[in-house]
């Protein structure tokens, strides 16, 4: 890939970061009043032992984002904070900072999402490829209708159903949380197993829904690819059907799937937020849910910014990796 393409893609990423920060800053102001100030003042009025700290926060906020300040100055103040990854204190959990709370929750989400996305992408893509292949076993065709039907359902709804069946009716798996109550997080086998058990149902809800989508897309691409001249020629070359399947059909048909993956990350994440909420899984989604309940604007803004940037980064990485798989993009004739 040429330098200029890399620079352009990084530029897109920078735009996404700026966009995320600006959304956070401007959207709450659309309603005419400043909901952050309102909430802060409410919280300050409550009093309590954290009173002094909240009062300081209000003062600082008024100084930097006060109504007497011009909008652009407030905006640049905000951008400055974001650039330093300073998302302020959590309003509802005062002495704790937003950055701290996000740092605690984000590994859970990254773990759950990367595993489920990878698994469903790989399984679904392979399945779709096989479904299009004339020599695949016939019973595979029967897998498709249920997978399609599952694909149409939101993640969290399947989560509810699985929760009822596998955690409530037949208590095979834990119903709630990221690890058992009372267990201290530690790097022991027992703890890891506990975490895996807790993550199984949330992961299953995401995987079972996603597989159908990848399979559907891949099957369509495979059918198109199998009609290409180079596949006909490969057959004319007397190649083994496994070679044709893997190196001619699948290898080419997977390229659009990867583009689709980059585009789907946002949707997957949106769905996963709700899965976390339903299962009380201690990731970003549940944290966001709490923040919304407590009207903790700083926390909400911090999460939204972090997640948008993280996804932008994931997309950037996929974009940069893609040319390694498609030589037509790597090479530019001079």
């Amino acid at each position, binding site marked *: 890939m040429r330098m200029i393409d890399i620079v352009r893609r990084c530029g897109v990423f920078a735009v996404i970061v700026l966009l995320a920060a600006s959304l956070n800053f401007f959207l709450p102001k659309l309603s005419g009043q400043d909901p952050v100030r309102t909430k802060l003042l409410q919280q300050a009025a409550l009093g309590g032992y954290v009173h002094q700290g909240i009062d300081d926060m209000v003062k600082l906020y008024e100084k930097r984002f006060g109504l007497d300040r011009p909008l652009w100055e407030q905006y640049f103040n905000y951008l400055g904070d974001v650039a330093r990854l300073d998302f302020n204190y959590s309003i509802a959990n005062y002495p704790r900072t937003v950055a701290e709370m996000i740092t605690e929750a984000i590994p859970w989400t990254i773990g759950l999402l990367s595993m489920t996305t990878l698994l469903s992408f790989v399984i679904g893509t392979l399945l779709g490829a096989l479904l299009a292949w004339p020599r695949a076993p016939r019973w595979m065709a029967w897998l498709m209708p249920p997978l399609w039907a599952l694909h149409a359902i939101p993640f969290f709804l399947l989560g509810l159903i699985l929760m009822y069946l596998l955690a409530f009716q037949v208590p095979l798996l834990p*119903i709630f949380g990221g690890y058992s109550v009372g267990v201290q997080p530690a790097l022991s086998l027992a703890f890891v197993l506990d975490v895996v058990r807790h993550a199984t149902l949330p992961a299953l809800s995401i995987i079972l829904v996603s597989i159908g989508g990848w399979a559907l897309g891949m099957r369509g691409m495979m059918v198109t690819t199998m009609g290409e001249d180079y596949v006909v020629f490969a057959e004319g070359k007397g190649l083994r059907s496994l070679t044709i399947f893997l190196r001619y059909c699948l290898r080419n048909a997977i390229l659009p799937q990867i583009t689709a993956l980059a585009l789907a990350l946002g949707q997957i994440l949106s769905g996963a937020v709700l899965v976390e909420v339903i299962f009380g899984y201690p990731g970003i989604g549940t944290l966001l849910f709490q923040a919304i309940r407590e009207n903790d604007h700083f926390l909400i803004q911090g999460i*939204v910014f972090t997640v948008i940037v993280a996804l932008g980064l994931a997309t950037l990485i996929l974009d940069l990796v893609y040319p390694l798989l498609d030589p037509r993009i790597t090479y530019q004739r001079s």
Partner: protein
Amino acid sequence: MRGLIRYFRRNLSLLVGSSLLLLLVVFVVTGHFVVDVEDARALSVRPLQPPSWRYPFGTDRQGRDLLAVMVAGTPLTLRIGFIAGILGVAIGTVLAFAAAYYRGWADTIIRGIADIGLTVPGLLVLIIIAVGIRGGLSVNQMALVVASLAWLNPTRTIRAQVLSLRERGYVEIARMSGMSGPAIIFFELMPNLLPYLAATLVNAVSSAILASIGLEVLGLGPIDAPTLGMTLYWVNFNAAMINGWWWWWLAPTVIIVLVFLGLFFVTVGLDEYANPRLRKSA
């Protein structure tokens, strides 16, 4: 009519999808005769009754008759989806045509915005919007909030379609025969594009419903409206699952599943109609 029936027999997805949606319509319409929709408000009936002859779907903790909630809420949820979906596709169509027709700068900008917008997880942006204007969102406002992002995907897909129709030369012929810009778009491309637009619309409605339910489950929906998503919010809020009040979540779950299945199969069917070449591979 005969032709329609014959077509349905060939396009099974469309048949299944439309039947499911029809089933929901029948449920809502007959429901209005069977049950008093006022019972969808809190404190109308005895709380936490499991399904019985009197309350076929049971009642919730705040004293709503869940059958009444479903009868009243299903159309509300569909309304949010359709308002947002139609707005999204309308905006998307205009932008896509502008991009594909004028090309150059207009195209670069519109495409750039749509591509970047799609990288951003929609639910989070909607959350920021909803939090900002929090406090008594009405169902229609909810639809507008969802519509604010519902145009991104239609813009992208319709633009691609318009470009590919252009490639296939529909426009060239029209241009040679002396039609002006907007006329070319309308008369030459629209008829070929209609099936795609229909598929895109159904898809957009489905995404909009998904987004609205997401916001509602997070507690950002119209608090006193009995929509399907709000019902699930209360389910989660009251920990109905752990408490064993299975009927509370069963009804909205089944109906939402039917809505999404119906819309999904209609989309697949319309895709097949728009692109009969796919049929052979099925």
